[in-house]
């Protein structure tokens, strides 16, 4: 047993120090030798959850990975699989060891094999505290969730190589810091303000995925979630307060906060049980689905399914974002991932339509046609092929053309109301069976919790490819 007292004189970047910060009371048992291999692996508990962690050693050759160090990572993975325990990688490494040549590349490739074989079987969390280049970049990228410390920089090739090969003058921040990976690339799930915060976030995720808890209906209090919507049904709003009010107090950990912010995904607890939340955010792009948000949500859905985390899908979506840019970015191919992710998902998944769900986006957001466990709607919700005004403009194009301009709006509203009675309206959706029931916003938490309680848990038998 190694304890925190031993490493008072150590370099703060030493694996012994960083592992001590990660494990409860600074206590852990090493499962690989403390040597100059560049990696140290250990087992212990993090907030009471038994888990395995490995840590690269930047005090030896900049944390570069040689064949022995890579074997230490493989050892950690073997142990995690044997124990069915979450595994955490703490990264600060320049990549493969140059002086070992191809042997180090072979070692790095073997770590990728271990990570992929463990994918979907045990939760894998990466905490990147310093530069993580080349092989050390792809290691975290293969895992379920990547947390970036303030000094974390992830890139395939560093600034010097970029400069010598392409002449492009960039620094590490722009290549692989919090801004590019938090906002643009989607490589990083969570950016943090301090090294301690990064480690703390890693521990929180281990707890959420490794100790999912059981749902206690008595602790699910009623909250007036409807009060969090704006009065005008046309007005966009930030969905975060709604998500945070839906889950247990202060339990929500959002992933990919700044990347594709038109959809919100994250883990939280409902009545003490871990749940995954997917929610459209009308404040950004009107809450439309687009190619990158569909991809972001599909990866999250598949991760939750792999670990048996039930899903709650809060729907307020006007449709898929139209336009040339989206088509060329592959909104069809990437949007299909979300259809696939939900359709294959076996973990309980409940949809709550809060305001509107139109067209193809309605299907994609865990509709009953894709096998949702239950679809709940709030009383004023609208489920339709498109908004009623847009629909009547197409259906009654000729008739509307004859209406004088000054009274057209009035006629449109009347036709829309009429159309809603015939085709839209939540009652019709219930009659058709695409919505299972209408629930008071105040009772939504309880209604979802009851569905989760009466549905047997299950987890998908698949990996979590970083889509």
């Amino acid at each position, binding site marked *: 047993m190694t304890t925190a007292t031993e490493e008072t004189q150590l370099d703060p970047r030493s694996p012994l120090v960083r592992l001590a910060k990660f494990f409860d009371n600074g206590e852990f048992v090493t499962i690989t030798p403390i040597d100059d291999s560049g990696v140290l692996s250990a087992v212990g508990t993090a907030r009471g959850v038994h888990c395995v962690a490995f840590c690269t050693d930047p005090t030896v050759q900049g944390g570069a990975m040689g064949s022995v160090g890579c074997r230490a990572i493989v050892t950690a993975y073997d142990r995690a699989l044997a124990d069915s325990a979450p595994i955490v990688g703490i990264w600060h490494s320049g990549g493969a060891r140059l002086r070992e040549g191809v042997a180090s590349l072979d070692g790095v490739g073997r770590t990728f094999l271990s990570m992929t074989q463990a994918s979907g079987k045990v939760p894998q969390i990466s905490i990147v505290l310093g530069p993580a280049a080349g092989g050390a970049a792809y290691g975290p990228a293969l895992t379920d969730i990547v947390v970036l410390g303030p000094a974390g920089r992830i890139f395939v090739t560093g600034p010097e190589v970029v400069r010598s090969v392409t002449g492009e003058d960039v620094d590490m921040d722009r290549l692989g810091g919090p801004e590019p990976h938090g906002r643009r690339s989607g490589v990083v799930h969570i950016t943090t303000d301090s090294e301690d915060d990064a480690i703390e976030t890693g521990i929180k995720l281990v707890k959420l995925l490794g100790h999912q808890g059981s749902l206690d209906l008595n602790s699910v209090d009623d909250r007036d979630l409807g009060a969090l919507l704006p009065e*005008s049904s*046309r007005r*966009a709003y930030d969905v975060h307060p709604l998500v945070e009010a839906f889950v247990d107090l202060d339990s929500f950990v959002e992933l990919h906060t700044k990347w594709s912010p038109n959809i919100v995904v994250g883990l939280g607890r409902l009545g003490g049980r871990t749940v995954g939340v997917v929610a459209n955010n009308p404040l*950004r*792009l009107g809450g439309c689905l687009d190619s990158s948000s569909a991809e972001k949500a599909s990866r999250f859905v598949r991760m939750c399914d792999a670990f048996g985390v039930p899903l709650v899908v809060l729907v307020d979506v006007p449709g898929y974002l139209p336009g040339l840019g989206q088509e060329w970015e592959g909104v069809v191919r990437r949007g299909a991932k979300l259809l696939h992710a939900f359709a294959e998902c076996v973990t309980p998944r409940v949809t709550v339509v809060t305001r509107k769900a139109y067209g193809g986006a309605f299907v994609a957001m865990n509709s009953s046609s894709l096998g949702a466990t239950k679809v709940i709607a709030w009383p004023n919700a609208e489920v339709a092929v498109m908004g009623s005004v*847009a629909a009547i403009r197409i259906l009654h194009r000729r008739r509307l053309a004859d209406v004088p301009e000054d009274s057209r709006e009035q006629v449109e509203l009347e036709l829309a109301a009429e159309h809603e009675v015939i085709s839209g309206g939540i009652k019709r959706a219930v009659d058709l069976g695409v919505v299972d029931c209408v629930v008071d916003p105040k009772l939504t938490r309880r209604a979802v919790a009851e569905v989760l309680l009466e549905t047997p848990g299950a987890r998908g038998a698949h990996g979590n490819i970083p889509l």
Partner: protein
Amino acid sequence: MHVVAEMVASVHSFEAAIGDQVSPGDTLLILESMKMEIPVLAEHVGVVSEFAVAIGDVVNEGDLLVILL
């Protein structure tokens, strides 16, 4: 600081005036797209120095809306 449009939209209304001091989260103007009224919020502290658009204008993704100083 240049505030640009996130998507194709038309300019619905202004919620701030030139010279206003704004903080992160304050609404600058409202765009209309996909039948939704979508607020454009300030991301930084600043003073509204110029609106680059007028009500009813159609803007494309990346078009300048407001300059904050």
